[in-house]
């Protein structure tokens, strides 16, 4: 066998292995996501006892009958963990959905509106980016009161600036590309260009951004309910159950441990789902680590830091929209200054 034939065979084999691995990952991911969907939609099928039922066994350790043990009132922790998924997942999924819709709207305005409007809008975005996400969420909850829907709104608003910044940068980049220029020359108006040419090209990026934001949103949502600002006891919620169990950590370790593990697993799955989604939508990129992308995106949004963090993007095969967007942001601000 010649060397080239061997090389070709090795290449074919690698390609095959890559395809197989990708398929297996996809199947595993779909199964896990379906499992989460089942827990979200019909928790009663998975846990047969109600999370509010006071049983006879108080503070029972994990056993065959109560796999995760029971709490002070004899409530089954397993049932509470299963039913507690609903508020957490609702808050993070709806919060991210809200943030991506608002972010696309604000970012589009920032990208296509006349200069003075876009400057004002993006300055406000920059200012919000200077405040920590949790602080924005806390301010909003102080204003609108506690509860699950407050958390959804708080997450939506707190994550909007991150989306808006990246969308704005992409829109500015897209507007410079020939096909958009061509559409303009052929007489398309601003609205038509936005709807027909700009927004469709943003969909992949926004989906990838949203899927990698879900992990962070889950962390923020559980932090807020951990602080007692979300779903109120006795209703089950991982954050508030974790906080309630924290005081009896030394005597009954299972009280805080299982809600905490549930949060951990959810964040993990969200991060892997983000990676998977990115591989699926943009297969050219080999391994992209979506879990850090969202943060990077925010990193790009601070103008002074743009260069340093843009340089940090240079991991082989990691060139992404955020990276390409970065010089665009700084050059656009530079041109504003000159003019």
């Amino acid at each position, binding site marked *: 066998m010649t060397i080239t034939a061997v090389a070709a065979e090795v290449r074919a084999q690698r390609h095959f292995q890559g395809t197989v691995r990708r398929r297996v990952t996809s199947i595993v991911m779909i199964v896990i996501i379906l499992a989460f969907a089942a827990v979200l939609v019909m928790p009663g099928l998975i846990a047969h006892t109600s999370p509010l039922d006071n049983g006879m066994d108080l503070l029972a350790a994990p056993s065959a009958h109560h796999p995760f043990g029971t709490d002070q009132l004899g409530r089954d922790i397993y049932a509470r963990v299963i039913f507690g998924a609903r508020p957490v997942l609702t808050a993070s999924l709806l919060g991210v959905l809200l943030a991506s819709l608002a972010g696309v709207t604000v970012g589009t305005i920032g990208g296509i509106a006349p200069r003075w409007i876009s400057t004002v809008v993006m300055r406000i975005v920059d200012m919000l980016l*200077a405040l920590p996400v949790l602080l924005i969420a806390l301010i909003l909850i102080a204003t609108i009161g506690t509860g699950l829907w407050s958390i959804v709104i708080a997450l939506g608003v707190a994550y909007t600036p991150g989306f808006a910044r990246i969308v704005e940068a992409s829109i500015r980049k897209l507007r410079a590309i020939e096909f958009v220029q061509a559409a303009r020359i052929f007489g398309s108006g601003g609205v038509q260009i936005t709807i027909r040419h700009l927004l469709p090209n943003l969909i992949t990026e926004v989906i990838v951004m949203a899927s990698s934001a879900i992990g962070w949103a889950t962390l923020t949502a559980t932090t807020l309910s*951990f602080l007692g600002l979300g779903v109120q006891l006795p209703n089950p919620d991982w954050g508030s159950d974790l906080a309630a169990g924290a005081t009896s950590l030394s005597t009954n370790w299972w009280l805080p441990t299982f809600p905490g593990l549930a949060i951990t697993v959810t964040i993990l799955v969200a991060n892997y789902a983000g990676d998977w989604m990115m591989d699926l939508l943009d297969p050219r990129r080999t391994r992209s680590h979506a879990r850090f992308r969202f943060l990077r995106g925010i990193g790009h949004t601070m*103008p002074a830091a743009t260069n340093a*963090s843009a340089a*940090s993007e240079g991991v*082989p095969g990691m060139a992404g929209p955020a990276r390409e967007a970065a010089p665009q942001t700084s050059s656009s601000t*530079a041109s504003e200054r000159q003019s």
Partner: protein
Amino acid sequence: MVFIVRRLIASIPVLLGVTIIAFLLIHMVPGDPAQIMLFGSNATPEQLAALHRQLGLDLPLWRQYADFIGQLLHGDLGTSYATHNSVAHELVSRAPSTLQLTGSAMLIAVVIGVPLGLIGGFRPNSIWDSISRVIAFIGVAVPYFFLALLLVLIFAIQLDVLPAIDNGTPAALVLPAISLGWGYAAILTRLVRGRVIEEYNSDYVKSARARGCSEARVLLGHVFRNSAIPAITMLGLQFGNILTGAAVSEVIFGRPGVGSFLANSITNKNVPVVQGAVVLIGVAYIVINLVVDLVVGAVDPRARVAGATA
């Protein structure tokens, strides 16, 4: 010098925005501030009106904002509804505890994150790389408040080597700092690892090797220096998140800091305290990022040019 001045000017709008948000809070929170202050004292409408005048709530909005800024410049953040003490005084007395925790968490992030990233990037896909990945992985997935509880369970309850509740000693800082810093260590590990791999392929490393530099010198003298810069920037950008994380950790570990004070004030609608804390955190964030940019500018001349365009 020009770079420093430009950077200072760039942070003014952000600073103004933060004060506007803080100022508007008093009008966004439902309920009349005067009524909250006089709660339970059966105030007559005349007393309410008098308090309105005293607080300046009858003035037009822009006058109120101007007064608010004027007070801010004098270091006056108003008085707490709950204790009637000066908010500035209460915040300043609590700030050292929070800053200690934030600082130690950042230190932990650097001490764990940077070496792990260096090791991982130095020999990618080796056993050390895998170990560093597992450690980073835990940091990303486990929420810090849960990690805090697990650490308390192991080190305070089972082994009884470190205190779980703040008692004023440096040892009490260890568990909160590790639980908070670990997640950011994970981010740094990832960042530094990627940078090190990239820097190893660059021309200046080849030229250093060609000049006969030892491998240790290449790694520590050349690659490390260039990989550390984005790590500093990233840490500066994360400062605000670490600060609010410290606030949550304070609640868990019973530390008397700004965070637990803020959390209480939010539930009690103690608006002046929330306003003061927002301004304080916003200013701290701006100052830290300014310092970071100046440090990066000092270490890396290329950043000065980039900073000037931004």
